[in-house]
């Protein structure tokens, strides 16, 4: 008798498992068809690094204080300083190796001038490794139109 009870109990549990799979068979699928449909990234999402500019003048906010370069854990930022026409210190070269960057956001958090931000853009794959070295103009283009939010 014990084996008959165990058999029926076993079959009942197998059917319980099957009920779950057939339930999800009839529910709609939850995946996105990627190239045609894209997910809207949350605004705090840490994507590629971008340089912010002043909306009126179009000049970069960065004053080449080198704090982000010192704080970057993997040394992905290289900056050289120069002076512009008005005598203020501005970056001459601002290079970020996107292949080295670990997207930690420490540069954004430590900048005192609201000049660098992680923009929620993520489609930067390329076949040529040299394109992964982002220079100042590319970084300004990535950061165009974004506003800085101070980390509270």
């Amino acid at each position, binding site marked *: 008798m014990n084996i008959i009870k165990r058999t029926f109990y076993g079959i009942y549990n197998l059917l*319980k498992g099957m009920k779950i*799979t057939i339930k999800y068979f009839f529910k709609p699928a939850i995946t996105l068809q990627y190239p045609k449909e894209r997910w809207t990234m949350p605004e705090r999402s840490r994507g590629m690094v971008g340089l912010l500019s002043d909306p009126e003048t179009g000049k970069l906010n960065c004053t080449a204080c080198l704090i982000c370069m010192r*704080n970057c854990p993997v040394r992905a930022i290289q900056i050289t300083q120069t002076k512009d026409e008005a005598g203020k210190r501005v970056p001459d070269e601002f290079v970020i190796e996107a292949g080295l960057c*670990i997207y*930690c956001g420490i540069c954004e958090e430590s900048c005192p001038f609201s000049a660098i931000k992680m923009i929620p853009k993520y489609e930067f794959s390329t076949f040529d490794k040299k394109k992964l070295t982002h220079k100042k103009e590319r970084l300004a283009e990535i950061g165009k139109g974004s506003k800085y939010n101070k980390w509270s």
Partner: protein
Amino acid sequence: MNEQISEIYTEEFFVNMGPQHPSTHGVLRLLLKMDGEVVLDMVPHVGYLHRSMEKIAENRTYYQYIPYTDRIDYVSSMFCNQVFCMAVEKLANVPVPERAEYIRIIMVELNRIASHLIWLGTFSLDLGAITPFLYCFREREKILDLFEMVCGQRMTFNYMRVGGVSRDITPEFVPMAKEFVNYFLPRVDEYEDILTNNPIFLSRTKGVGLLDQKIAIDYGVTGPSLRGTGLKWDLRKEEPYSIYDRFKFEIPTGENSDVWDRYIVRIKEMRESAKIALQALERIPEGPIKTKTPAVFKPPAGEVYLRIEAPRGEMGFYIVSDGSPKPYRVKIRTGSFSNLTVLPIISRGWKIADLVAIFGSLDVVLPEVDR
């Protein structure tokens, strides 16, 4: 009959379950000595994922090292962040505001659920039931969406800081998290429907891979594997750290210390974590989220060891500081490393198919082993 069988010429042979294998959750090489189907002995070779985390720490400041701690165990990043920040706070006597403590608890318990979901998915995938893997990842997506809303990343969060957390939670976070917890609790029942009493699953896991309690304690096994042997040992109750003493939760244990018990312990832990998160979400106070620390942070010279209950066992950080902005020595004690040492002992005498189930139930993640 036994004499006749022993007269047949058999040979033991060595099989290499190599670094690339679908079942060894990462790059682990197992050298097996087998007699037919039965495993006689085993030697694990580790080190394929060694990234010298401890040496790197000597050249980074405490603030710069936090993204590295994420990557010690990228499946449960919040725990690694938390233990490092708590160790440095203990070393430098930095207080943590109330709101930050509550936020840390919520994040950490949600991460425990996410980590156990990965374990459940890969465990059932190893045993042949492919569908729960997809269901677990579907639930995990919701948790990762919550995390991304707050700190910006889905996997390596870099969220906690010495003295609190880095960003405040958004107003949408609390209702969304509550909705998630209420959505999640019936899902655990569904996973149990598919697996727990399934006769095929029972015959694969009941009575397999018995871990004696004394051997577990001798080898330093911690976490759900130790609780599966019947010992009620959880650091959240034994040495309450952070504000765990304000929440009501149970510690599930197993009875027979086989694979099925370890599975049940983790399933119950998922429910308990959801309960803790719900309790914390109800009572978050207002306030600051981080105490101010100096820009060049120099803890006093000394040493500290601090341990927490991570999903895979006990994770501990031993930090020696000499008063400079960079630590002098960091030693990381991870649960998976000690749990892996007991694998050769409990898999002797079992077949290869059982080895896969036993290894899955120990929940070893290779980045933790190799650091």
